[in-house]
């Protein structure tokens, strides 16, 4: 790339500029569901322009192989775009792995093409690209495996684990520094990549399946950063911009998640999570709880004026969202005002509940965010908790010794009646007891979320028509 560009190069760069603007608009339009679809179109058009532009690149001699690659990628991509909504977390992890793989491979190829003629700054950026990319590949694969339950969900910890991980990373950095000084040492390069790959695996091993979402989001940020680094190496401004956008998105989502889970962000950043915080505190007092049958629940619901449904991870596991929709319909038909309270970290992914409920055709203006709906619980007749646990735990408000103390929660306990659908008295993700279940105004509805909601719906429609 000389200082005076060829005509085709200018066209390419201008196409990249337009693509950058479209990418930015694409994210901007995600600020509201009414404009979000435009966002996708902007992104798609930008992508198309960028790829077409790249094909104009004057050095390209082999179009056939490119075409095969694009077709093959499409063939793999289509099923990845058709997975079930409940499989979205692992799909996301998998695609981080793919993205990082691309970045790592391109970085490695560039190293071999250019070595030993690489400036120090360039070699530093290249190392950053490959190390971040490499650890993201294996880390994301591990995360996807755990979420898909191919790998054991259980965190695997041992003494000195952090030290081992740290030393491994240090090795990679040492090699990188050596390469910066001696970019001709081609034989060292593979070791750096291998260590990064190994580090990705070890980073995820000690983390429980439930902690994956934060990790995935963080890996998203890493993938973005490595793409931006690749942009530096290739002097490609579009890549830098897309990488920076992706990187900030990953970081911001992890920050939002860790705030909503009341974890410090540094805690997350340094992979120190997964240390099971409180081994199911288990004050085995066998305190009494009141439970109810589907018939009783249906009666209470149909007598109510205002109902707030609080969905959680259990609804996702049971895939109960369509049944919940039927319940919503049945109650609405009877004139009951039904709304949904959405906690920011309900489920296992930011926005998880929104997507599932939207999938079941529930209008999004019925999905109310925590801060907005919390004031309404005292005027609510029934709060129906479906497979949520931690996000409703009043200990977060009252019990300073609780590991989730200070985490913002949905104030379901303030409703006149609380009904909780879950299969057992087992704790949720945080592994702690929920005092909500022992309150006088709480009724436990034991059973699988889908089956139980189904019974309530049958009861409701059986009663009337």
């Amino acid at each position: 790339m000389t200082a005076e560009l060829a005509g085709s190069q200018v066209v390419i760069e201008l196409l990249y500029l337009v693509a950058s603007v479209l990418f930015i608009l694409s994210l901007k339009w995600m600020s509201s569901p009414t404009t979000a679809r435009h966002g996708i179109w902007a992104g798609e058009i930008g992508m198309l322009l960028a790829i077409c532009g790249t094909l104009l690149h004057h050095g390209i001699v082999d179009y056939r192989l490119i075409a095969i690659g694009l077709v093959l990628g499409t063939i793999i991509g289509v099923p990845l775009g058709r997975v079930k909504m409940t499989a979205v977390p692992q799909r996301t992890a998998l695609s981080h792995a793919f993205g990082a793989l691309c970045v790592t491979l391109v970085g490695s190829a560039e190293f071999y093409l250019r070595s030993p003629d690489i400036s120090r700054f360039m070699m530093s950026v290249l190392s950053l690209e490959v190390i971040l990319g490499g650890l993201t590949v294996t880390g994301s694969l591990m995360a996807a495996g755990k979420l898909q339950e191919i790998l054991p969900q259980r965190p695997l910890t041992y003494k000195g684990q952090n030290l081992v991980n740290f030393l491994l990373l240090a090795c990679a950095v040492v090699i990188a520094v050596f390469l910066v000084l001696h970019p001709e040492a081609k034989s060292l390069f593979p070791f750096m990549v291998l260590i990064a790959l190994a580090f990705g695996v070890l980073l995820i091993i000690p983390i429980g399946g439930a902690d994956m979402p934060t990790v995935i989001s963080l890996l998203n940020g890493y993938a973005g950063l490595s793409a931006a680094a690749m942009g530096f190496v290739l002097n490609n401004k579009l890549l830098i911009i897309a990488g920076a956008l992706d990187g900030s998105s990953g970081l911001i989502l992890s920050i939002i998640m860790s705030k909503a889970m009341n974890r410090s962000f540094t805690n997350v950043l340094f992979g120190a999570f997964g240390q099971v915080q409180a081994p199911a505190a288990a004050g085995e007092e066998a305190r009494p709880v009141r439970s109810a049958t589907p018939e009783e629940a249906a009666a209470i619901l149909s007598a109510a004026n205002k109902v707030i449904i609080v969905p959680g991870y259990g609804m996702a596991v049971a895939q109960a969202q369509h049944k919940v929709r039927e319940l919503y319909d049945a109650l609405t038909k009877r004139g009951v005002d039904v709304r949904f309270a959405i906690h920011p970290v309900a489920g296992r992914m930011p926005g998880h509940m929104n997507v599932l409920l939207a999938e079941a055709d529930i209008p999004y203006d019925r999905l109310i965010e925590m801060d907005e709906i919390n004031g309404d619980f005292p005027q609510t007749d029934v709060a129906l908790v479906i497979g949520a646990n931690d996000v409703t735990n009043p200990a977060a408000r009252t019990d300073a010794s609780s590991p989730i103390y200070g985490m913002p929660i949905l104030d379901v306990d303030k409703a006149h009646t609380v009904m909780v659908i879950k299969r057992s008295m087992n704790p949720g993700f945080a592994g702690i007891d929920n005092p909500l279940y022992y309150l006088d105004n709480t009724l436990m509805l034991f059973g699988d979320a889908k089956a139980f909601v189904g019974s309530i719906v049958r009861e409701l429609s059986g009663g009337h028509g």
Partner: protein
Amino acid sequence: MNSSSNLINALFIFVLAGFIGFEVIRRVSPLLHTPLMSLTNALDAIAVVGAIVLVGEHKSTLSAVFGFIAVVAATSNIVGGFLITDRMLKMFKSSRPAAKPAAK
């Protein structure tokens, strides 16, 4: 290609784009955080342009092979990412549409 002037330009662009990223993403509706993740995924796959050049220039077997795998990986992200984001966003409806029988 690796002149310091280019690097400085790249730094400026990185910083500005990062700033835009933070401003824009912070304002994404929490309702859409899941589609946001898959959308950024698709956009990030723009790395495909680097891979395409590698394959197309075919400077060495290694670079062509690496590039090819990279093209496949990135393209599958583009296609899959846009597809699933679109599917998710289609589901978000504001007022109730002509009561479609809920899926079984």
